[in-house]
């Protein structure tokens, strides 16, 4: 794996910092890491690098060429012989912050960090005047001078995560997303024509950056990962492009890809790279692991991702990649979303990714295109209610996103749907039904004393925690009130049928046939793995959308009987969160209720809960 300068600087020795700081004239405070941004700008300065190239001997040039083009592919090199020219060259590069010695599982290695390798390679090539031989004569002006925010890969990535938020991406036995599902995604992809292979790459990327999780033989946008997703979509377009480059383009054969990427980045806006000339040069220079197959594979993959454009043996960055790598993206327009009186929500290409993600949680997508169209309808309101979003928060969120506010009729519809959908809820509960109310009162008395009482449903019915059923039986048995082992489940349907109804994966008959074989095998249910980044006391509050996560975690906890730690605020405006460890919990009438580890009853409105994490069973 390639080493990152950012990581290296954090672990650099005091002496190393001092030496580099002195040589590069970077202000340095003893005991502190070197400032990454300043250092990277200083050491990759083209003028400084060109000057360095002039000072190197022909032998050193040969060695550097070997390192950059013909040795191991991750710019890491084995220990160098003492007093050798190579060691001297390493020293020259080292004091300039271009090369480092690092300890890995293979022992000590020399490395050129990933952020530095491309500028250094370009300086080397320019010194030998190589780029000129690879640039085609043809020039084609670019029609625009900024990169669009909403470009094919951003569109496809967002669309796939949005899809997975609502419907899982089931996997075949070979571990691929079913072709049928890929075909569905193609219809929603950029210009409805992205190839299945390119979408597979995007799914891979979404997995790598934590936007998709694996659950029950499928990929889906897990509730517990919503926080990750929320943080991810705060990224700028430039950050996204960088992540895509490092994850998808520069991942498997960095020597050639680095060469290609360096050369494409060197082109003027209207220039093209001559791929045949590049091939000839790479062959003559014996670039490691280079072959025409590698070239075609790398280039076609980059083209499928919308990063390069090809034309008769010529290649160059697309507008997005060219201007985007220079940080020249079109300006983000906040509050640019338009809600039409028909309930349609239009999300323009210049909308921030974070706003898109919020809209995606609040409405139903209906059209994926340059202007993405959502619909506020009963279904989207129902989904918001399921996520624990209150009517006030729902409307407030739209007001914060919309350029023109919410049309009055749409707001009335939202309020009516909320009113209609929140009047009744279907709850699953474990109930002790007694023959008469005197018997039931007796149970209540005993269970209250034992700390196992939850709430009364009717004069003859008590709701108890299913997690504590065994303890309750024991307590009552001791009190001389035996209860039969069997549990009546009036009104429930056959479990298999239920499974089909609940699982949106089986949304059509064909799909059901295809995945039917999974159902005969036990399905492993894993609780969501929550990484608690932002819920420590004192840190800013988590956005409202995370209530969905919270509800999911609580529900998982109820189903699997895991204890919970719940983070909440006492007053809605509080900035400091408090926590409580619960041994049982439930959600009822908009509140999270439960019993804490000291057997005390606990209740807090769901709106006050900021996060929850399951505890391991001891």
């Amino acid at each position, binding site marked *: 794996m390639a080493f990152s300068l950012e990581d290296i600087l954090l672990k650099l020795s005091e002496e190393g910092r001092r030496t580099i700081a002195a040589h590069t004239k970077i202000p340095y405070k003893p005991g502190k890491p070197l400032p990454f941004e300043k250092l990277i700008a200083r050491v990759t300065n083209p003028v400084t690098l060109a000057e360095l190239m002039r000072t190197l001997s022909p032998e050193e040039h040969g060695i550097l060429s070997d390192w950059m083009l013909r040795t191991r592919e991750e710019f890491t090199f084995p220990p160098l012989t003492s007093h050798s020219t190579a060691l001297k060259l390493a020293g020259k590069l080292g004091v300039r912050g271009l090369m480092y010695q690092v300890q890995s599982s293979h022992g000590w290695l020399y490395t050129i960090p990933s952020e530095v390798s491309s500028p250094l390679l370009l300086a080397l090539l320019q010194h030998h005047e190589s780029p000129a031989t690879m640039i085609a004569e043809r020039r084609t002006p670019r029609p625009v001078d900024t990169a669009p925010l909403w470009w094919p890969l951003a569109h496809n990535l967002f669309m796939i995560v949005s899809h997975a938020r609502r419907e899982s991406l089931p996997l075949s036995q070979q571990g691929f997303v079913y072709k049928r599902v890929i075909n569905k995604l193609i219809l929603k992809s950029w210009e409805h024509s992205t190839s299945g292979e390119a979408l597979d790459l995007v799914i891979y990327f979404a997995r790598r950056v934590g936007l998709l999780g694996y659950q029950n033989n499928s990929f889906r946008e897990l509730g517990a990962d919503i926080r990750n997703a929320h943080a991810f979509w705060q990224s700028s377009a430039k950050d996204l492009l960088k992540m895509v480059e490092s994850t998808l383009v520069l991942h498997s054969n960095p020597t050639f890809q680095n060469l290609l990427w360096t050369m494409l980045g060197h082109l003027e806006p209207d220039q093209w790279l001559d791929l045949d000339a590049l091939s000839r040069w790479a062959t003559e220079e014996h670039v490691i692991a280079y072959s025409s197959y590698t070239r075609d594979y790398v280039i076609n993959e980059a083209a499928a991702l919308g990063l390069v454009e090809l034309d008769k043996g010529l290649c160059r960055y697309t507008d997005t990649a060219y201007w985007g790598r220079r940080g020249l993206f079109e300006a983000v327009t906040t509050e640019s979303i338009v809600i039409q*009186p*028909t309930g349609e929500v239009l999300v323009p*290409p210049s909308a921030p990714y974070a706003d898109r993600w919020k809209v995606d949680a609040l409405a139903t997508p209906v059209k994926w295109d*340059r*202007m993405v169209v959502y619909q506020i309808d009963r279904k989207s309101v129902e989904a918001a209610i399921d996520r624990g979003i209150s009517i006030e928060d729902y409307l407030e969120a739209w007001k914060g996103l919309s350029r*023109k506010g919410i049309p*009055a009729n749409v707001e009335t519809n939202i309020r*009516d749907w909320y009113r*209609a959908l929140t009047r009744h809820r279907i709850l699953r509960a474990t109930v002790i039904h007694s023959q008469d109310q005197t018997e039931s009162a007796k149970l209540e008395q005993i269970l209250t004393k034992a700390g196992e009482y939850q709430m009364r449903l009717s004069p003859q019915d008590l709701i108890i925690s299913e997690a504590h059923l065994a303890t309750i039986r024991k307590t009552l048995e001791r009190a001389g009130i035996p209860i039969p082992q069997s549990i009546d489940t009036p009104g429930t349907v056959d479990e298999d049928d239920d499974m089909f109804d609940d699982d949106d994966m089986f949304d059509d008959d064909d799909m059901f046939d295809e995945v039917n074989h999974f159902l005969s095998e036990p399905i492993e249910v894993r609780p969501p793995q929550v990484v608690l980044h932002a819920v420590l006391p004192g840190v800013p509050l988590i956005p409202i959308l995370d209530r969905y996560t919270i509800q999911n975690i609580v529900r998982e906890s109820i189903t699997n009987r895991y204890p919970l730690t719940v983070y909440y605020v006492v007053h809605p405006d509080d900035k400091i969160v408090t926590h409580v460890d619960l041994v049982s919990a439930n959600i009822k009438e908009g509140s999270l209720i439960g019993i804490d580890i000291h057997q005390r009853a606990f209740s807090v409105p769901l709106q006050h809960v900021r996060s929850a994490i399951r505890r391991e069973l001891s």
Partner: protein
Amino acid sequence: MEHRPLIAQSDLSLLLEVDNPGFEEARQALVGFTELVKSPEHIHTYRLTALSIWNAVAAGITPDDMINRLRRYSQYAVPETASYFIQDQGRRFGRLQLKKAPDSDGFWLTGDDPTLLTQISRHRSVIPVLGPPLDNGFRIRPEHRGLLKQALAKAGWPAQDLAGYQPGRPLNLELRDVGLNGTNFFLRDYQRDAVNVFSASGNGVVVLPCGAGKTMVGIGVVAKESTWTLILTTSVAALHQWRHEILDKTTLGPEDIGEYSARIKELRPVTLTTYQLLSHRKGDTYPHFDTLNAQDWGLIIYDEVHLLPAPVFRLTASLQSRKRLGLTATLLREDGRADDVFSLIGPKRFDLPWKDLEEQGWIASAQCREIRVALSDSERDRYALAEDADRIRVAAENPAKLGTIEELLQEHRNDHVLIIGQYLSQLQSVQERIQAPLLTGQTPLAERERLYQDFRDGTIPVLIVSKVANFSIDLPEANVAIQISGTFGSRQEEAQRLGRILRPKSDGGQATFYSIVSAETKEQDFAQKRQLFLCEQGYRYDIAHADATGAPTDAPQVIPFSSYKEV
């Protein structure tokens, strides 16, 4: 960077931002090769269709020009799919031509691409209407002209019809400057534009909002073409209105205008009939159609073309040698036969957003309001237990609506109110409660016309009407409509009913359209769908609630919207 107003989508829709300074210029650039789909207040939607591009090519706009116009106003690169579609469809029009046969025996389908002619001749829907081979093409029987054009358009290779039209018997008439009642008359600019656009092609549909004077466009076309004309209408009442307008606005006299109805059978230079009569069948023949078809008409006008019944489609296929004008406010066919209107009557030639005309004062401004009335407990029980097919009716006939109607009538006691409903029993209940006259399909014609006239004169301030008054009835003074039930989710019906009150008011006042629905029922869901077309035209619905007695429940009181303030 300059912020341009247009976003071209890869599904061939074009979104135009109204607030952008370049909006008007871009809109003008799009007219001619796109179709306006909807025009709500912030972003208008246009669409590229095969038809819009064929029309544009026919009008001399090249595909490259269309693409350049898109590029000029697009904020982002024009999708490849859009450019390709324009080029592909643009090259299709005119490759096949329909001409008079060289030997004057029928027509001749020809073209300069023998491969295409062969390809077309093997198309399943074209084969039945193709005659024997003729030099570089095929002979076409006159009765197959319309069907061939329909089949070719569906196959994606529209024929350029160069065979011309039957001129019809000439008719001398002029438009009057002053109507018979002494008021000045002139065609408004947009009406004149519509007349000219139609006359340039000789067939097609003019789409204008209710109250915008479609009849005047029809009369303008008759005057411009100066030929014998057959006018098809939806009802005898509408027929009489046409007759009245022609007499009022042209130099034609009563002797020039014929009524061909169940009661009277007159054939005159301008003859008015109904769709119902035209499609009347006796055995295998259509006697009235045959009689009318035997006349030498140069022009046929289809009023409310969105209502054209299926038999008339078939009959129309044989009328291709005559100029054909369709008039409608809503080119929406809930039966999905809009394509047939294109093939047999012609493409949409002229269209104007409703709000544009409202801004110019040619139609009244209107407030649309939906009132959601609760069902009482017993009605809720009835609704819950009714069969699916009956539930909509239970909701529609919610007795609580009567209370709301009374509230509204109290508020609008000085207005001219139409109460429009679907179910006779419900309308009769309303009549019993408020003691206003009721007009239905069962009302004799003379009585109907008397009621309409009394309403126009102001003698009757409130008129209860069934769906017979959905279309074609000119009641200029009506300024309030209360819709108490309707045909499921019909967008077209909603728009037509609003149209009853859109004629500009003599006092410049605005119109108010109420739709009363039962809350939390299927009827409320249908109302959402019904309102779609009007919302897309830029109308907004205010929504209020009433309890199971029909009394307002919102605070501040919004029924009868006395607290409403114009923003």
